[in-house]
């Protein structure tokens, strides 16, 4: 028994060797992950200002709204597209590849493109909506009013990251055996019942993972909004990451910026734990 264990790499000497392989990677992780956290705690200051900082609360609220809208739309849309793309049809390979293109583009470049789309003078969005009779004039300043600016940011983000969700969901769907659908079909379930009986519950782990991942990403959104609106108009799309940036580079308040990043990290922690707890509970119920 002990011999077997030693051979399998669990003996004390082997453990030392194994650790020595892991140490370089751990050091690197510590350098890029742990060190900044420690530094943030070390240099954080102005905690007492937090409770009175209206801008922080406003940008937190913007971020929460942006995250909630973007992640929920991306999840629903991503799942719908994944369901379509897992069905066999002619030219599916090509469509699958095409769907992934937005995700492959650099965010800043794609944000510039969206800026053009939203442009009140020559933007295609206003023009299209006007042609369909949905707006009274093609010259809509999408990025100039608080409500539509947020929507515009969400739309651009949805366009860019839905493919990522689709990709994750497709791999999740591939893991659900066909036999289950056949069994449900014989049991008497139609397509809708099959979705709620099999697809949704069995996709829950993938859904949770994708949502946590995307929530973390959108909570830290910077480049997209920075290029698109710069946080405006009137701070209506100022996300917490932009506010941190402002504190560092515009107000030169490094200590307070560190405090804000800690607030951000705490929010993310709570949010991720919430999503994971929620989906796990459902799974056990």
């Amino acid at each position, binding site marked *: 028994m002990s011999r077997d264990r030693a051979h399998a790499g669990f003996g004390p000497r082997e453990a030392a060797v194994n650790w020595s392989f892991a140490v370089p990677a751990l050091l690197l992780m510590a350098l890029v992950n742990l060190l900044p956290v420690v530094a943030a705690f070390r240099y954080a200051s102005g905690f007492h200002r937090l409770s009175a900082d209206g801008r922080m609360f406003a940008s937190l609220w913007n971020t929460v709204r942006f995250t909630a809208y973007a992640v929920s739309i991306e999840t629903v849309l991503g799942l719908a597209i994944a369901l379509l793309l897992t069905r066999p049809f002619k030219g599916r390979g090509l469509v699958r590849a095409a769907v992934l293109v937005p995700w492959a583009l650099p965010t800043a470049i794609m944000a510039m493109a969206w800026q053009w789309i939203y442009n009140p003078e020559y933007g295609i969005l206003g023009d299209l909506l006007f042609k369909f009779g949905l707006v009274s004039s093609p010259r809509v300043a999408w990025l100039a009013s608080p409500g539509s600016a947020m929507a515009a940011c969400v739309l651009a983000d949805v366009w860019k990251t839905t493919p990522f969700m689709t990709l994750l969901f497709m791999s999740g769907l591939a893991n659900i055996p066909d*036999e289950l659908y056949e*069994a449900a079909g014989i049991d008497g*379930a139609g397509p809708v019942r099959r979705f709620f009986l099999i697809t949704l*519950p069995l996709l829950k782990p993938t859904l949770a993972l994708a949502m946590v991942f995307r929530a973390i990403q959108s909570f830290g959104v910077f480049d997209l909004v920075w290029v698109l609106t710069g946080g405006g108009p009137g701070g209506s799309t100022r996300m917490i990451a932009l506010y941190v940036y402002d504190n560092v580079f515009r107000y030169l308040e490094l200590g307070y910026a560190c405090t804000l990043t800690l607030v951000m990290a705490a929010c993310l922690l709570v949010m991720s734990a919430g999503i994971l707890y929620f989906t796990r509970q459902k799974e056990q119920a």
Partner: protein
Amino acid sequence: MAEVAVKNIRKQFKGGKRPVLDDISFTVKDGEFVCLLGPSGCGKTTLLRIIAGLELADSGAISIGGADVTDTPPKDRDIAFVFQNYALYPHLLVRENIAMGLKLRGAEPALIEERIQEAARMLSLEELLERKPAALSGGQRQRVALGRALVRHPKATLLDEPLSNLDAVLRERTRGELKLLFKRLKGTAVYVTHDQIEAMTLSDRVVVLDKGRIQQVGTPADIYHHPANTFVATFLGAPPMNVFPLEEAHKARAVEDGAASGTVLGGLRPEDVQLSLELKDGFLVGKVLLAEPTGAQTVLSIESSGFKFRACWPGTFPGSREEVFFRLPAEKLHRFDADTGERL
């Protein structure tokens, strides 16, 4: 329960060189247990899936209980299907798994509960009802899959190699239980297997398939003792039947049989070969090339004047013996056409 009739079913998959099923017709009588037996790739699972409606045939018709269901979706055929991998809903309790078919058909909760209890009693699942499939052993999952199939009292139960994922001991025990269960239920069942023992022990009748064609339909005794062709003759039986050009056996003087011609194959079951350790009248001497003890018998590979065949020695063959005396009884000989393989 009802009769299942398969008429002239033909199926070819896209890109396939030959049809997987070619003009298949047979009828499973009300309350009959029929096995579809054949080697891997013979089309038996495809045929079962066509009966269930999970696959569509290119041509032909399926009727269940006298009603043509060829174009009816699986849920409206009133059949149950036991999948090879059980296909239990992993996130639902055993109870919910069993109940799902009834629930989806809008059965009354009281009836559902009654049927669950009935199935649980029948399959000894009482203790497992509140568990999830992941917490069950292979044999228990198999029983839950059966419970799910039987709880609806379907017109016919279709089973796709339901025992193939069980270990040998459990498989044998479950096989016995399955036979008793269906005997009690008097249920119509179509059972796919590549295991001849399963087919022989379980079925009222066996449909032997090879290369998409029916080779023979008959009772287990029928197909064993009167195989329709060399495929059936060699597919059933362990060890399989000796099939040899009759002329060759004549040259070796192994068979005392009048009509010998190059176009006839002889067939003899290894257990029909008479063996002796002493020379008897009409016996020949053969060299033992290989002795394979299986416990109850020893399978001997024997050669005599260049003619090779296998024979069964009851019990343990004395290991020191290199020679054995044998007789190939002409009255036990099966004859097949050498060109077509058909029984003569």
